[in-house]
């Protein structure tokens, strides 16, 4: 199995859905439309000549200042043919939404929840899209590039009185 075989098989069926193809150091990555992303993942999994049955990784990226702003990246692996392909799909504000891969790959469940938790990308068709790493009452999605770091001023001897005056120390 090599990149050209996969690319030819995908181009044959999803020519209209492929937005970009990139090959870097032997790794193939394809950018899809949201509709084509789900269909291509289904095709890659079910076609016996391809058999990309393992979702190796799913994560989100925030390209602040770019259109579309967010991108979801999924790596599919074919154990039978010892080959890997990367699927990307873009989504934009205010409600970044991407079809969920959980019906195809159960392992996508937690990884999509993590992506939702940290980046605020919603996944259509996910069984229970709730926070997984952060506390349930957390406000915001901290892996976004425009999220404040939330650091506190460091107390030294010259400014500790001012800082400690408004620090929420616990009372016994």
């Amino acid at each position: 199995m090599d990149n050209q075989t996969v690319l030819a098989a995908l181009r044959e069926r999803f020519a209209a859905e492929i937005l970009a193809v990139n090959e870097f150091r032997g790794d193939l990555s394809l950018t899809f439309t949201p509709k084509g992303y789900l269909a291509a993942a289904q095709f890659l999994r079910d076609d016996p000549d391809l058999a990309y049955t393992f979702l190796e990784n799913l994560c989100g990226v925030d390209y602040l200042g770019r259109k579309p702003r967010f991108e979801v990246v999924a790596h599919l692996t074919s154990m039978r043919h010892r080959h890997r392909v990367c699927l990307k799909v873009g989504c934009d504000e205010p409600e970044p939404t991407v079809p969920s891969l959980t019906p195809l790959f159960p392992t996508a469940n937690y990884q999509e929840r993590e992506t939702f938790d940290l980046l605020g990308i919603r996944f259509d068709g996910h069984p229970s899209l709730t926070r997984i790493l952060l506390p349930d009452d957390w406000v915001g999605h901290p892996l976004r590039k425009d999220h404040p770091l939330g650091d506190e001023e460091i107390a030294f001897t010259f400014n500790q009185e001012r800082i400690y005056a408004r620090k929420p120390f616990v009372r016994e």
Partner: protein
Amino acid sequence: MGIEEKAGNLGIVTTTLETVVNWGRTNAMWPLLFGLACCAIEMMGAQASNYDLSRFGMELNRASPRQADLMIVAGRVSRKMAPVVRRLYDQMPEPKWVIAMGDCAACGGIFNNYAIVQGVDEVVPVDVYVAGCPPRPEALIDGIMMLHQKVMREKISGKKESPIRIDQPLVQVK
């Protein structure tokens, strides 16, 4: 050890109740068995045979907060972990003490960001802060000794003493 006088060979020792109670508390102080990050490795080192915390009656780490009276917060406390730490503290019976071990537990350390509590004293009242990243076992034992001194000063009336101030640095460099 607070023994004022021995009465001949009758084997009678006189002392104050306060001293005996405090002596008992310091010499059987059982820490709660939990570690949050890399400081816990140094805490295990302090308990292992090289440094041997059991010299001070602390060989037992209790796995249940209801049997522990010392909480050593060893490591950074994330915002998600903070309610758990507080709950463990609430479940410990009185009297109870807390040591913030390491820079992260004391003030946030290198993790000055949204995810880490900037000092565990926002969650539980801390008695002794041990500096270091991570502190060596000697430093932790020094903090425990300092806590023992503090416990020895406790009054049966409940009156609070002023904090121990170290005017001279512990290590004298000539």
